[in-house]
């Protein structure tokens, strides 16, 4: 199966060479939606068309974008737009491609969001490790200013807009919207209590829209061509197109842009060239480490928000990590727990301590010292995390344990019964992690 989008909506760098350059972007309808909005539409009209398009947030939760924008109170100023380019979920690399290769579309979408809600300042919050691709984004912003597309009195109107990039510094939790705001305010990135939601009290306690990079990259086309145009793709409840980051044991790991609801997981696997190892694919994580793992028997499910729900998983950030039969789920779960233990912000005890104990249990298994009692202990630790955490990260951390146990309990039983722990490879892995931790392990804020 080949890639079904002969003309991309988002990954347009795959169709148009050098679209990262302003002149090329403009020659391909770039900033036409922006000009149309500022010169001929009211903010509410922009919100209206985005609402009608049914565009849902692409950062994970799938919340309708237009609806989110409509929550912004009119009478409180200033208002802010913060763009979420923290992209740190293992397996996700779509926003990276967008800011690197199609940055103007991200800027135009950001600008349209600002205009829609009446904001005059936007911050694009990029993970600090994006320093190199951010050079492309910053150049695009500079070029847009120079061309009069950003800045003061745009298109001869009294509307002015500034767009800035703000770099994070290595903390997955800053992808969570309220932690992102704290970080942007110069504080440690710990989530805020909600409500109030950012729409009412966000950055500097002002009304704030937070959207993912990919969400906003959809907006220029929607404003220029209308909601019906966008709805030519996707389903009633999952309209439009979505980028699927595909990694792991496939021949062609890459970003794939697809209409929602049309293709199945199996189709996606085939587009990516199928198994790269010759071994059958055992399972896939559809949204990185945070998501319930999907065993191959469910690969018939269609790729949209609803269908993923019916097989007990999520569309989420759409980072598809395929794993072949050789992957031991005990090992895979440990990798994921290691991530969450590292990234727990330390604000609340169940998550901070729970991920610590969970990793200890998995380390014990890998080192060959565990018994089935330790496997049962995982469920106990899970119960102490689940439902007790301040933000979703804690809950995410339980997915890897809960769902590998649910679908691949035999891996755990065999691991213990056959004494798989303690192998030279596992010992080396544990040693490396412990050595790194000793030298660079950071003291997380405890509050």
């Amino acid at each position, binding site marked *: 199966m080949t890639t079904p989008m002969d003309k991309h909506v988002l990954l347009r760098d795959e169709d148009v060479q050098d679209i990262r350059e302003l002149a090329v972007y403009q020659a391909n309808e770039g900033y036409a939606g922006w000009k149309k909005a500022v010169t001929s539409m009211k903010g509410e009209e922009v919100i209206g068309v985005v609402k009608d398009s049914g565009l849902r947030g692409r950062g994970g939760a799938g919340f309708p974008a237009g609806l989110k924008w409509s929550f912004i109170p009119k009478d409180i100023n200033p208002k802010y737009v913060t763009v979420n380019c923290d*992209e*740190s*979920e*293992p*397996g*996700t*690399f779509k*926003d*990276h491609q967008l800011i690197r290769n199609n940055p103007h579309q991200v800027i135009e979408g950001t600008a349209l969001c600002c205009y829609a809600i009446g904001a005059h300042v936007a*911050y694009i919050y990029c*993970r*600090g*490790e*994006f320093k*190199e*691709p951010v050079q492309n984004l910053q150049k695009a912003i500079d070029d847009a200013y120079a061309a009069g597309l950003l800045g003061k009195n745009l298109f001869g109107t009294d509307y002015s807009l500034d767009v*800035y990039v*703000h*770099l*994070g*510094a*290595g*903390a997955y939790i800053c992808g969570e919207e309220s932690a992102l705001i704290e*970080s*942007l*305010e*110069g*504080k*440690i*990135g710990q989530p805020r209590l909600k409500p109030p939601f950012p729409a009412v009290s966000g950055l*500097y306690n002002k009304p704030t829209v937070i959207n993912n990079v990919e969400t906003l990259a959809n907006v220029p086309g929607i404003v220029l061509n209308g909601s019906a145009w966008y709805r030519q793709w996707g389903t009633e409840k999952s309209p439009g197109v979505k980028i699927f*980051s*595909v*990694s*792991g*044991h496939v021949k062609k*790991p*890459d*970003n794939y842009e697809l209409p929602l609801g049309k293709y199945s997981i199996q189709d996606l696997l085939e587009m990516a060239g199928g198994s790269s190892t010759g071994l059958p694919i055992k399972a896939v*994580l559809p949204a*990185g480490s945070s998501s319930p793992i999907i065993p191959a028997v469910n690969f018939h499910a269609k790729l949209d928000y609803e269908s993923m729900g019916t097989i007990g998983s999520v569309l989420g950030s759409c*980072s598809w*990590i395929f794993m072949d039969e050789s*992957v031991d789920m005990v090992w*895979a779960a440990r*990798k994921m727990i290691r*991530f969450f233990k*590292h*990234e727990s*912000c330390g604000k609340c005890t169940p998550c901070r301590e729970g991920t610590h104990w969970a990793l200890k249990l998995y380390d014990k298994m890998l080192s060959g010292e565990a018994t089935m009692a330790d496997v049962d202990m995982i469920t106990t630790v899970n119960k102490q995390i689940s439902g007790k955490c301040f933000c979703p990260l804690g809950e995410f951390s339980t997915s890897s344990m809960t769902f590998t146990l649910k679908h691949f309990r035999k891996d755990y039983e065999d691991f213990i019964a056959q004494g798989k722990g303690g192998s030279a490879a596992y010992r*080396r892995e544990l040693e*490396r992690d412990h*050595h*790194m931790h*000793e*030298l*660079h392990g*950071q*003291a997380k*804020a405890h509050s």
Partner: protein
Amino acid sequence: MLNSMLKEKRSAEIEQILAKYPPERKRSAVMPLLYLVQEEYGYCTDDGMREVAEICGIDPTEVKSVAGFYSMYRKHAAGKYVIEVCDDLPCVLRGADKFIDYAEQKLGIKAGETTQDGKITLTTVMCLAACDRAPMCQVNLNYHYDLTPEKFDQLVDELKKRDE
């Protein structure tokens, strides 16, 4: 007397950074300013952090807690070149662990350590959003993709030459 090396050497950049945020919200500049400190001093030194605190009008302990929270702010000097190899799940499925074995052997150090001449630090890191090009690494935050032992040899040779 308060050291103000940052202000003397990087005043234009400091102004540029501060201009991004509302004048009464200078604290927002803490993170970009800490990057300047790191560039200037090699890591987040006490002097540097004090200067940031002064510029932002907050307490030095608050700057310290920010520097402590985020993993990209270094608390100690590192090698001139920091090679960060991703060993998160998707990359390891594509051979990152074996690649790190090779890198350790080539450099004669373990992940986390710095070569004796102080030039190269090797570390492992969590997902860097380039899992389709694994094994991959960043060298002083520049991406290097589809790594092989041969490519790594070239990379290391080039880094060594850069200093001659």
